[in-house]
């Protein structure tokens, strides 16, 4: 400890963010007797968190969440996912594949979860564990940056409390990590590096779920959708069964969403109102919550060396979100990374060199095979040809031609499509182009699919009602996002890509405005952060100065 440190409150470890990554890190630190404080900006852990909804325990992973937290599955999770289906859609034609084999590959178990109940349960366990070693977990505290001394990171600064120094700072503060950006380890520059997910949690009674999905009370199903549902935007949809609700969502490549000027809530509605899903919702469609989240694409942004001085990044903050084809794994990697970061610090401390924690962590991520999952070599090789525009155009053209249709039929006859969709090896190489997301599924559905009869009676709420249904504690007079360039060229795409904004909608964050000045008209964008769901989309695609709201302020998700 230096002279400067003495003026500050000090803990051996500060963990920023109480999601699964932060919880795993804090639990491991506490188990090793490290005095640890966990700082969470939500009013309760989970109130700022959204996920599609499946958490995995991988057989090959060094840590799983139920090993770290006794009773996790009973107390914090929804239904175990016992079957997994993929549906290719073309108009009202649907061709389905059972991809349970792919789902079960390297999977000890996988449960659907809702983040508010899950994370708040974890936080209780973490508080009890960390309290034992002189620390604890605090909510309503936003860590807003790194504390430095002579240019070196020595702790964190916060909105609500005075700076804290620590021997290790574990940033598990999510996809829009302010600490990762303060350290210069992550940025928001390239839309190609991100996905945007939107989700509706829909009320369905447990018995109805059992009946409509053909599952037992302790079973659940996952369904994925791809094809021509989404106006050619690259991405897909999902439906997961919770105890007494369904998580229905869509995930799109942010660059594609921006380029197509697509409205995320409308794409979600396209899925919700497809006749294939109609019977799952029953007669009364009742939406519990609308939510959105930015998702890092680990293939492109998982940081190979996610540390700097005493700072280490964990989970989404380090881009550790694996999304390849139908495989979507984030929380499990965050758990592994959090536990490895804790392990790395404890070993470094015991060796008398706590500053070696970052290097230790990087090595452990590599040696445990975690980095290889996040940034697969096979993807690198395949994407080199697969994501090239010419290759996409050719494969798209071939697939759409009679030749392509014939090929798809031939593959189906020998059972090759089933095998293809069930292959973990193939899933790792799927390039991020229109071909696997849109063209191939559409052709498959068109050639092989069965038409779904009838119309959907589902009428999803409009955006105004969805925003109206969310809980906010607005930090009046203190907007957390500043629009740096309000020209339409710089920030106009936010009007459509922001999940709580839309063209011709006055109640969202971003609006188009026409300003007449001295005889000329100018197209500009205005921003009102009141309905913000803090997803971070506009940080990437518009010209903003983006921060999280202060502790306890902003949106509060009840399901997440």
């Amino acid at each position, binding site marked *: 400890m230096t002279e400067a440190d003495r003026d500050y*409150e000090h*803990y051996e470890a500060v963990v920023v963010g109480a999601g699964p990554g932060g919880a795993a890190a804090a639990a491991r630190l506490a188990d090793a007797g490290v005095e640890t*404080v966990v*700082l969470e900006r939500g009013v309760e852990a989970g109130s700022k968190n959204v996920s599609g909804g499946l958490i995995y325990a991988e057989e090959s992973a060094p840590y799983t969440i139920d090993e770290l937290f006794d009773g996790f599955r009973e107390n914090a999770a929804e239904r175990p996912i016992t079957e997994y289906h993929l549906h290719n859609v073309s108009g009202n034609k649907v061709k389905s594949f059972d991809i349970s084999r792919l789902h079960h590959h390297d999977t000890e178990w996988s449960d659907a979860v809702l983040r508010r109940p899950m994370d708040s349960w974890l936080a209780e366990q973490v*508080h009890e564990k960390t*309290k034992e070693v002189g*620390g*604890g977990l*605090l909510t309503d*505290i936003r860590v807003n940056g790194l504390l430095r001394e002579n240019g070196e990171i020595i702790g964190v600064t916060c909105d609500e*409390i*005075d700076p*804290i120094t620590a021997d290790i700072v574990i940033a598990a503060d999510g996809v829009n990590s302010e600490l990762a950006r303060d350290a210069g380890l992550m940025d928001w520059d390239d839309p190609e590096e991100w996905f945007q997910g939107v989700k509706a949690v829909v009320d369905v009674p447990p018995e109805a779920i059992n009946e409509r999905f053909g599952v037992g009370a302790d079973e659940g199903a996952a369904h994925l959708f791809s094809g021509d549902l989404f106006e050619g935007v690259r991405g897909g949809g999902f439906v997961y069964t919770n105890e007494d609700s369904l998580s229905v969502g869509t995930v799109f490549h942010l660059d594609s969403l921006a380029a197509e000027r697509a409205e995320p809530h409308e794409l979600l509605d396209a899925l919700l109102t497809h006749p294939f899903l109609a019977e799952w919702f029953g007669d009364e469609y009742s939406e519990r919550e609308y939510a959105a989240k930015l998702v890092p694409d680990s293939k492109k942004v998982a940081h190979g060396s996610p540390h700097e001085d005493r700072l280490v990044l964990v989970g989404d903050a380090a881009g550790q979100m694996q999304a390849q084809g139908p495989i979507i794994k984030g929380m499990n990697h965050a758990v592994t990374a959090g536990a490895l970061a804790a392990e790395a610090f404890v070993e470094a401390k015991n060796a008398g060199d706590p500053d070696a924690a970052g290097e230790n962590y990087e090595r452990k991520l590599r040696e445990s095979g975690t980095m290889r999952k996040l940034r697969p070599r096979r993807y690198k090789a395949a994407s080199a040809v697969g994501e090239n525009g010419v290759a996409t155009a050719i494969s798209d053209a071939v697939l759409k031609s009679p030749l392509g249709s014939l090929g798809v039929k031939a593959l189906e006859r020998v059972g090759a499509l089933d095998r293809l969709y069930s292959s973990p090896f193939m899933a790792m190489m799927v390039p991020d182009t229109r071909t696997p997301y849109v063209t191939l599924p559409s052709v498959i559905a068109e050639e092989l699919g069965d038409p779904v009869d009838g119309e959907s009676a589902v009428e999803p709420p409009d955006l105004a009602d969805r925003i109206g249904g969310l809980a906010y504690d607005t930090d009046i007079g203190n907007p957390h996002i500043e629009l740096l360039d309000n020209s339409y060229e710089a920030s106009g795409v936010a009007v459509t890509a922001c999940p709580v904004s839309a063209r011709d909608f006055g109640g969202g964050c971003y609006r188009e405005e026409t300003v007449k000045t001295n005889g000329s008209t100018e197209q500009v964008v205005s921003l009102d952060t009141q309905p913000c769901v803090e997803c971070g989309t506009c940080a990437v695609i518009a010209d903003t100065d983006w921060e999280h709201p202060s502790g306890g302020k902003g949106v509060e998700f009840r399901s997440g």
Partner: protein
Amino acid sequence: MDTLTLTKGVPDFREGQVSFDEDGHLERGETPTVMNPNDRFALQAALQTKVRHGGRTSVMSMGPPGYKEVLGEAMESVYADDLYLLSDREMAAADTWATSITLGTAIEKLGLPDLIFAGFKTADGETGHTGLQTCWCLDIPIITHVVALDIEPEKGRVRAKRLVEGDVEEIETVEAPMPAMIVADPEFEPSYRTAGERLTLKDLRAKTSKRGEKYEEYLTVWDHEALNLDPDYIGLDGSPTIVESVDPIPKAPAERDATMVDPGDPDGLEDVLEEMEPFRAELAAGGD
């Protein structure tokens, strides 16, 4: 750092709770008793002191036996180590003078704490005298209208920011030796600027919710004999104040009618605009 907070039960004056008879007199039997709302700020000051410096936190009230529930309410609101109720027929109908003598005696029996907290006037009497007179009985300094508090235990001093003339714009900082009385202003803001303080607060809150349910286990009741007080100097007999009569203040008659308009109803809003039209003309004609 031991503290004592003084609190009082008052009629719940909130709409829907309070009941008046035809002459505008309070119907005491029909109106529930609650903790004096201003006392919450005193309790927050006591809690801040406990969080920052540790020590015992006690709460005291004087009143009929039913006022124990007011102490229970205090217990639910903040962490209290023990509760004291001064209750006895001989203490009944006391004015602020007799109340102060009773409180002062009880505080001496308890042992003078480092700080005594009180709220800024009660919702029923509104005199603001009891705290001052209790200080006079105990011969300790008092700082009123306190909005922020800083204690230096090793120096035995308390430093407080207080509103001058109740104006938020004008704040002075004063210091006093302890023991002292602090009267918390409704603008009092507790402040917890370290993780350690917030963790202690969280811990106390978790315990408070459990203790609040069984507050009677922490309750001590003292009558005049326990305090060794002469009935002639307390209660009605010890009160020099004579209340001649109470005049109800008539409620101002409402001169305006309210009409509800759904903002989504264009016809309704059209009507509103029509109603406002004459005022626009008035403004345009040179109003300011």
